[in-house]
């Protein structure tokens, strides 16, 4: 499978502190990567670097074969940020207006919304079974409903890679399972590459095929089942805990 994201020797400085050090990995088309690590390990930082939201001080990143700074095909990447990270909750926008924002990456100036765009949004909302929310105010929805709307915004441009930052935190257990099954379906049936930051280790082991475990640097990158036999296995867990947590050796 072709490599669609390649990071080589990435380092990031926050002031004098090194948030990430010498991080290298390559993600192939169709991978389902679980990005895990302890609090403050740099998971969100790493994702934001890939998306060009934070500058990196050393190393190189290639997205779909292009250096990240020259990459312009943002419609190939769908992003679901951490819940309530930057969103203005008083914003008077409908679900329809929010999901349309996911199509802006395909548009050239002056950006105009067409009937075709409206149809694409309708189809996406129907696929996620939230079409009835289309005209509702985003700020009036429950946390789980808002999360589904933001997922629709990430999916609407039919991206080749989807990046999720802790998507399950706002979801109840039932919705969480449904959510993981949905992204697994996207991965298996449509070949969409997935990068998923999660603390939900009990779930990720069942769905992801690759684990990128970091703690400011790469601790493990590779097959998720090899994590517990890795030479650099993280000292936070005992071996037996790893077996249980990642659900690999039932």
């Amino acid at each position, binding site marked *: 499978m072709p490599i669609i994201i390649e990071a080589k020797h990435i380092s990031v400085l926050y002031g004098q502190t090194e948030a990430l050090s010498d991080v290298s990995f390559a993600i192939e088309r169709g991978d389902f990567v679980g990005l895990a690590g302890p609090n403050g390990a740099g998971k969100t930082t790493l994702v*934001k670097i890939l*998306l*060009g*939201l934070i500058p990196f001080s050393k190393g190189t990143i290639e997205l779909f074969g292009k250096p990240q700074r020259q990459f*312009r095909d*943002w*419609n190939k*990447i769908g*992003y679901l*940020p951490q819940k309530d*990270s*930057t*969103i*203005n909750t*008083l*914003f*008077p*926008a*409908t679900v329809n*207006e*929010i999901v*349309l*924002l*996911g199509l*802006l*990456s395909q*548009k050239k*100036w*002056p*950006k105009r*919304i067409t009937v075709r765009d409206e149809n694409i949004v309708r189809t996406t909302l129907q696929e996620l079974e939230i079409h009835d929310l289309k*005209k509702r*105010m985003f700020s009036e929805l429950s946390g789980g409903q808002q999360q589904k709307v933001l997922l629709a*915004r990430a999916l609407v441009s039919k991206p080749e890679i989807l990046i999720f930052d802790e998507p399950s935190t706002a979801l109840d257990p039932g919705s969480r399972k449904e959510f993981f099954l949905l992204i697994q379906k996207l991965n298996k049936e449509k070949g969409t590459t997935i990068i998923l930051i999660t603390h939900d280790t009990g779930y990720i082991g069942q769905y992801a095929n690759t684990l990128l475990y970091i703690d400011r640097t790469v601790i493990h990158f590779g097959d998720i089942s090899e994590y517990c036999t890795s030479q650099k296995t993280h000292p936070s867990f005992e071996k037996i805990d790893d077996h249980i947590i990642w659900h690999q050796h039932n």
Partner: protein
Amino acid sequence: MDLFNFLHYTFIQKAFFAGSFVAITCSALGLFLVLRKMSLIGDGLSHVCFGAIAIGLFFGIYPLYIAIPIVMVASLLILKISENARVYGDAAIGIVSAVGIAGGVILASVSQGFNVDLFSYLFGNILAISTTEVILSVCLSFIVLMMICFFYWDLFSATFDEEYAKTTGVRTQSINILLTLLTAVTVVLSVRIVGIMLSSAFLILPAVTALQLAKSFRIALGIAGLVSVTSVLVGILCSFFLDIPTGATIVMVNALFFCLALVYRKL
């Protein structure tokens, strides 16, 4: 005097025409500013406008001509200071605003001749608006509204979630510069309508009124525009018949609409 005769006065027609255009522009920009928690940039820039008008009067140049470029530069300065100098945005507004006022006061003191003219700009006087000012207000308002139309989705996306907007290729830094430059032009235009002291209210009140009632962003823009234009028309009418200051009356009508919207929302 009846309403029919009142509408035949050329100065009333000019005030209605220019006031309506500036009102729509202020309401549209105000909505983006309020939602981005940048409401006070209008207040800061109106203070800079005071200094700029003083410069114009000091050098004998028509004040609004010189105020537009100076306030635009000041708006960029606010952005630059808050981005690069370890200063929060509100502090940057405070710095630029204070320098604007201080410069104006010093120039007024040194000249000793135009204090009356300068202070007449503090509270505006739309009923004394000249034909040139009407043309300037309408043309610049039209340009600002066109820019909002052309960049509507970029402005919308960057206002809802700036970080996500970047991931869809929206150049949020350029959009921020555009928004502050448009605000600078609009503040200068609103100074002629409601004056330096009240121009920020002209930006903020229609937007916050709309936010109490709107169920979508487009509806919010519509309500803000309607409230703003109605406030100008009712304000001019009331100030003429009750013989009270026009700018202050327009702002009070705006405030009344806001109170009504609050009550309606609570019901």
